[in-house]
């Protein structure tokens, strides 16, 4: 089998499962609730389709999307997989390739998972508000979701390789970090989900605003911090791929 076929098989194995189906159902329910109950009102009085509200929506769903991804990661480190790995490693497949394959599978699964709430939100905007300028949401989707994902993917792979139980501990941790206001608990720079920046921007831009349309600008500091998370995530992933496992 070539690499593409292996990857296809890996993705299939992940997404065609009861476990993934249930999680997607929960994600759909959660997204529907967020859109109809919270997004519809608009974030802090902005339009429901404003950049602010959309970023708020991304923040709402990202904790669940990330938790689902970590759940899917547990597949790589469960007992069944570990037993299978012993057989796999006896075949001519290097460990680095094995993990790269798994990571690629997770990346594709993440994209597919994240597309569920995103597509739902686009349909919702089109149907309810006849709004279709979705292109402007692109940068918020990219800068808020992807660095968080890569960083947590890296952390998850390192933890999973150490012990699968730690991965289960990471799930509530990621969920709580994504859904709680952490600005008074964590240092401001430790902004994994981008909430601190979003909250500070709200204080600076939306409080006492003098016009209806306030654009949501991503500062260069924020972009750098997101790049740092991507960089850290990649380092952790490289470490996972190349660190030799104990026999």
């Amino acid at each position, binding site marked *: 089998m070539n690499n593409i076929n292996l990857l296809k098989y890996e993705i299939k194995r992940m997404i065609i499962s009861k476990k993934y189906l249930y999680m997607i159902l929960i994600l759909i329910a959660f997204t529907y609730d967020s859109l109809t109950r919270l997004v*519809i009102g608009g974030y*802090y009085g*902005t*339009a429901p389709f404003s950049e602010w509200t959309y970023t708020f929506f991304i923040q709402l769903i990202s904790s669940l999307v990330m938790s689902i991804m970590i759940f899917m990661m547990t597949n790589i480190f469960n007992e069944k997989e570990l037993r299978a790995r012993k057989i796999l490693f006896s075949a001519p497949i290097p460990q680095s390739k094995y993990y790269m394959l798994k990571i690629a599978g997770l990346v594709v699964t993440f994209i597919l998972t994240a597309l569920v709430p995103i597509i739902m939100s686009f349909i919702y905007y089109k149907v309810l508000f006849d709004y279709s300028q979705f292109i402007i949401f692109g940068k918020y989707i990219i800068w808020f979701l992807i660095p968080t994902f890569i960083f947590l993917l890296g952390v998850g792979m390192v933890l999973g390789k150490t012990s699968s139980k730690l991965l289960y501990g990471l799930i509530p941790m990621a969920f709580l970090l994504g859904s709680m206001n952490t600005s008074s608990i964590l240092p401001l720079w430790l902004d994994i989900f981008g909430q601190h920046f979003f909250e500070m921007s709200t204080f600076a831009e*939306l409080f*006492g605003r003098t016009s209806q349309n306030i654009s949501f600008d991503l500062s260069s500091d924020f972009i750098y911090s997101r790049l740092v998370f991507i960089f850290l995530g990649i380092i952790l992933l490289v470490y996972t791929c190349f660190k030799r496992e104990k026999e």
Partner: protein
Amino acid sequence: MDLLKNEIKLMFKSKLIMLLILVSCVAVTIGINSLNMSNDFDLFYIRRSSSTIAFGAVKFGASISALLFGLFTVLALDKDKRKRSKEIIGSNIDYHKLMIIRILAIVFYEVIATIIGMMAVIAIQKFVFSIPVNIFYYLFNYWIIFFPSLLFSTLIVSGLYLLTDSLDISFITLGVLFVKSLTSNNYLFTWVQTNLDIISDFAGIQPVGKTIIYNRLLWIFISVLIFGVGLLFKRRYEFHLKESFFINVKSRALIILVVIAVLGSGFTYIKEPYTMELIRNMENDIDENISLTGLRPEIVFDNEKGEIYGRVLYDFINKGSDSIKFHTNEGLSIDYIKVNGEEIEYNRTKGEVEVFIPNMKEIEIMISYGGKVKTDKNGVGRGMPGYISKDSIYLLENSNWIFRPLVKEGDSINISGYYSAPEYLTVVVPGRLIGTEIEGQLKKWIFEYNSHTADIGAFAGRYEKHEISFEDMNIEFYYSPRHKEYVQNMKIEEYIKDMMKYYIENIGDYYSDIYPLKIAEVALYKRGGHSSENVITISENMLNRDKNMYSLIEDENTQYRGMDIDVFMSDLSLIAHEIAHQWWGTGVKVVEDSPWSSEGLAQYFSYKYIQSEFGDMESSLFLSRWESRVRELNNYYYLNNSEMLDKINEKYRKSLEMEKLQSELYYLMPIKLLKGEEVLGEKEFLKGIEKVYKNYLYKDLTYEEFLKEMNLSEEAMEFE
């Protein structure tokens, strides 16, 4: 028993449980400071006591520990499946039984975590903060809030695991229930950490304790139900769900357990006894053909049972109506209603009673009723307009504890009657206290009052009463002796005197020589302040902050401007606002027509007081906040695109309208008044206000009349 001991030992060896207990202890310890970590400005610098420390610790700790113990439970139950040892163990021992023993072992460690967490926080309170420990608060918080949260988490996730046979699905579903609990306003759903923000140092836990216990009762049923259903569907041998169910269903005990849990949870939810949907009294409900001229309440408070009973006599002048509607409190049941001395039939619907009246000019209605006052469904612990507990009574007029007639208020309403309460309580009555009588264990507080409104409340507590003498008047100040030190150190009485002096000099004399101003401290279960006739209530946070605040008074030349100054200014501004209502609201009845209302005038004068006492720097902060909020709301999408409002649900639409109304009344109107002051000049403006007050004392004042008297136009007061 041996199996249980064995399981406990096995878990101990895994070390994970020790880590879990340690994390729980760290979480409760962090929680000690959770009030200052929140965004709740009112609760910053609240004085630490057993009630605040124990509750803060438990609230924060429960949210972390419940989720972690849930995770541990599901990992423990899934262990054999992961290790593929389920069948081997099942051939030696009843696997069903082992699961239950494993859950019991986890519960054992939850008890240990609760005890150690409690001891850790007690030790910190005692040895680090040197605050005396009231063990009651610890026992209540740890065993009614903290431990049940962990227990529910374990039972729910176990049930879900047995039902789904999947670690992931069960844990994710627990996560969904967990989030729902954290975000719900309904106290029945908040199974993790309750929906309180704080436990009152003034009134104790009792006013809200019963709702916490009720929540626990409901969730015992729900978690047992989920667990029972899980046992019903627990996979047997290699069978699937359906086949396993047919085997499990043979257990009669299990069926009885599930049936009891279904009935129990359903009944507990439906028959919830403490809350109701509070009806707002809208202007258009008022029958203009009838006016209220007299109100005679004779009320007895049974603080042990948390009940009231008694009767209220209403006098009306009727100009052609055949019925009178009253808004009621659903917790109070009517014994009888008499119209002009004769008992009659009446229509009672949810929150309302309609009484049919003869075609006569003078109508006298007597309503005899009693029961437990219900509070607002979404306001438990945060915005309770009415409660009666052993140590305090707090009944605002908007709880409809005295059934509110939906009629016009006469120019002069004679109010007289009595409140009977246990002797150990000091009752703050509206109007003037005529006298007191002792009747067995009860003390009767007889009062009389003459007013153009009938918004009377009832407030009582274990107060210490202080008379603040000012010129030729006395202000009665009622507060808890526990907060005396703060009141004295922060010179609250001096500030109250200054406020009175400022208002008398700039508005006019206090509206009455007969009815003294009464200021009463109340619990934080209703935030902020309130003015009912000549009684002002202020929530305890204004009289019970940390000792560190004393430096604000002692060290006048402090260069450092911290959050504590903002908190103190906000407290004083609120007290000044409520006192200003004695002039605007009680003295002059300001006819509300948004943005015009008594709130705007009270805000304006509290601002002026802060400006005169502390200078422009402090007062300008309030002004900039108001301007900021008004601008913000002016730029709200839905308020500018009203055609889109039909897309949002009614609840949200109403909350948006309420937000807008509040912004207009509390922020826009004082800004407009400051604009008027800018146009006329401060001296002229205040002179004009003095004239308005003099001319409209005991009368209604509309916005048009105000503008005319002040020689101002609406355009001049416009805020861009």
